């Protein structure tokens, strides 16, 4: 603010930022790079940064297993494998589960948040109470969950997983949407009520338009959580329902061990829906992200 930074301070700031960028983006770079590597380069040491013999075989295995098998038969050094499940099914299942769970989580989250903010439901410490639920490491509740699910015949069902995901992301939804609702002055709804609108109507027409950016931002975060969730997917399913994360774990062969390249390919592709989702709501995203941060 007062006087420009000295030269070495500037240099230090820039270098630090560059290092941070490199560290943050390295895993993504590695992922994409590995997805194009042939099998002999997956675990080579010293590591191969960018493949000298890029191949689409990994992608073939993911998307067109039959074609991949034929290719492997013809090539020398290409892996032979047998993989359970199809990537397409995994994408489909994940899409259904993640989307449904996100919608439910955000829907109930909004209603609950509204109730908590406007009517002080549950008292002053309620928000903190349900946040502590989220603080549980999921692994601690996995065993009871498995038992519960089998008792309720929810194991390995779409509904079961959707329910689990909704339950676990609900505190997060409520917490985030709560701060957006708090930004909307009570008097606005009050004015709508006094001038003749019924409460639900007032919420939909007056309050909701003002928080929709925040709700979308929350939806995006919840979707990411659901899409990349692994532990519950692993423990609460037994093969009928396969999510993207499970499918990645499935790429293992007796002969070659973990098929890193294929996993990388699957991983690369599975980031695309999230990026797509983020892109179409980006207009609302910036406003939503900063809105909650500004304390009235």
């Amino acid at each position, binding site marked *: 603010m007062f006087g420009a930074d000295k030269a070495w301070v500037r240099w230090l700031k820039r270098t630090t930022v560059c290092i941070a960028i490199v560290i943050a983006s390295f895993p993504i770079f590695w992922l994409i790079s590995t997805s194009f590597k042939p099998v002999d380069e997956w675990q080579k040491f010293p590591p191969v940064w960018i493949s000298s013999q890029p191949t689409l075989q990994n992608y073939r295995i993911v998307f067109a297993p039959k074609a991949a098998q034929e290719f492997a038969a013809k090539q020398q050094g290409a892996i032979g494998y047998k993989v359970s499940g199809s990537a397409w099914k995994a994408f489909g299942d994940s899409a259904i589960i993640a989307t449904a769970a996100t919608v439910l989580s955000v829907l109930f989250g909004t209603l609950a948040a509204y109730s908590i903010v406007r009517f002080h439901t549950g008292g002053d410490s309620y928000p903190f109470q349900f946040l502590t639920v989220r603080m549980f490491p999921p692994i601690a509740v996995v065993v009871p969950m498995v038992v519960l699910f089998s008792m309720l015949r929810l194991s390995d069902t779409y509904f079961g997983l959707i329910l689990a995901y909704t339950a676990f992301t609900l505190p997060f939804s409520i917490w985030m949407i709560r701060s957006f609702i708090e930004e909307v002055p009570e008097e606005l709804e009050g004015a709508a009520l*006094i*001038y*003749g609108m019924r409460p639900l109507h007032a919420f939909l027409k007056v309050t909701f338009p003002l928080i929709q950016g925040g709700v979308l931002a929350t939806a995006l975060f919840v979707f990411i959580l659901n899409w990349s969730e692994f532990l519950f997917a692993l423990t609460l399913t037994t093969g009928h329902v396969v999510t993207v994360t499970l499918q990645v774990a499935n790429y293992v062969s007796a002969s070659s061990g973990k098929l890193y390249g294929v996993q990388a390919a699957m991983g690369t592709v599975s980031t695309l829906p999230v990026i797509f989702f983020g892109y179409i709501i980006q207009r609302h995203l910036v406003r939503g992200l900063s809105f909650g941060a500004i304390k009235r």
Partner: protein
Amino acid sequence: MSAVALERLRKVFNKTTALDDVSLAIGTGEFLCVVGRTNAGKSTLLKTIAGLYRADGGRVIIGGRDLTLLPPHKRRVSLLFQNIALFPTMTGYENIAFPLRTTNVAGDAVERRVRSIAQMLKVEHLLDRLPRTFSGGERQRVAIGRAIIQPGDLLMLDEPLTNLDASIRIRLRIEFKKLHREFAQTIIYVTHDQVEAMSLSDRVAVLDGGRIQQIGSPDEVYHRPVNRFVAEFIGSPPMNIIDAELSQADGRLALIGTGFSLPVEESEGQRWRQMQLPRQLAFGVRPERVIVAPGPTNDAPIGANILWVEHLGNRSIVALRMGDVTLTAVVPPNRPLNADRRAWVGLRPEPQHLLSRETGVFFPLAA
């Protein structure tokens, strides 16, 4: 039957009683101002009448209907909030037309009403714009338009001028009087500025600590305040309240204090005696009734030191130290009075302005 009747209204938040047994009756078309300090309960009162808060006791009766248990959208009252609360995603037109959404008024009738109100309030140019482009005064006027387009049984205004510049405030004040004249609505106007309350109201209700201290016409609350709070709150500068002792020497009554002795006129003496006053009491004198002179005169025999002088152009306010009492006086402008000089003051205690030191209540005059 009054237009609005509040019977022993109570509202409690956590452990604080915001409204404590508030009762009042307002006639149809009356302009009532509720004045008090911040946090006296004024906004709470309006919100409870509107139904945004559920009363914890008492009743709200408007237009003959008991509204106490009704939700806000059924109450037929208008409330103009202190922070205006225009709907940010709607245009000026849509904001003003809002109260008519849930009614059966036909489309073109709505349009006509909105345009005529917009014209009266001089906000036609704002009808197609969003509130975030309006200035403070413009938002105020659009909010007023929204509040009056569907005349209900009661119009309530919560400190509508507080957030505006002093110069705009003074000018907009008269617009409310004009509005009231034009629409003859029953109005409750809340403010912390007693000047506004005095200027606008048919009657003033002074609220403190959730209780109504006094309701009366501006003349009543000004000249016959019921207790110390009202006396000091109404009137700017506030009434001087001075502790004194009632003495009877040679059959003549006088009020004695440090640095002053004020004899009571013979003719008044009888009235005072009938009031059965205690020895230790206090008396009030309005600043404009304090006589200030540069030298001792019959009317101004008591010596005092001038602390400071404010020249406001059309009058001057003088603070004086008389004994151990600080007095405020209002005198005509351009008097040659300077700080740190000596001056002479005259006070004439009146029987209706004697109050108890302990309770702060003014003694009633003898019948």
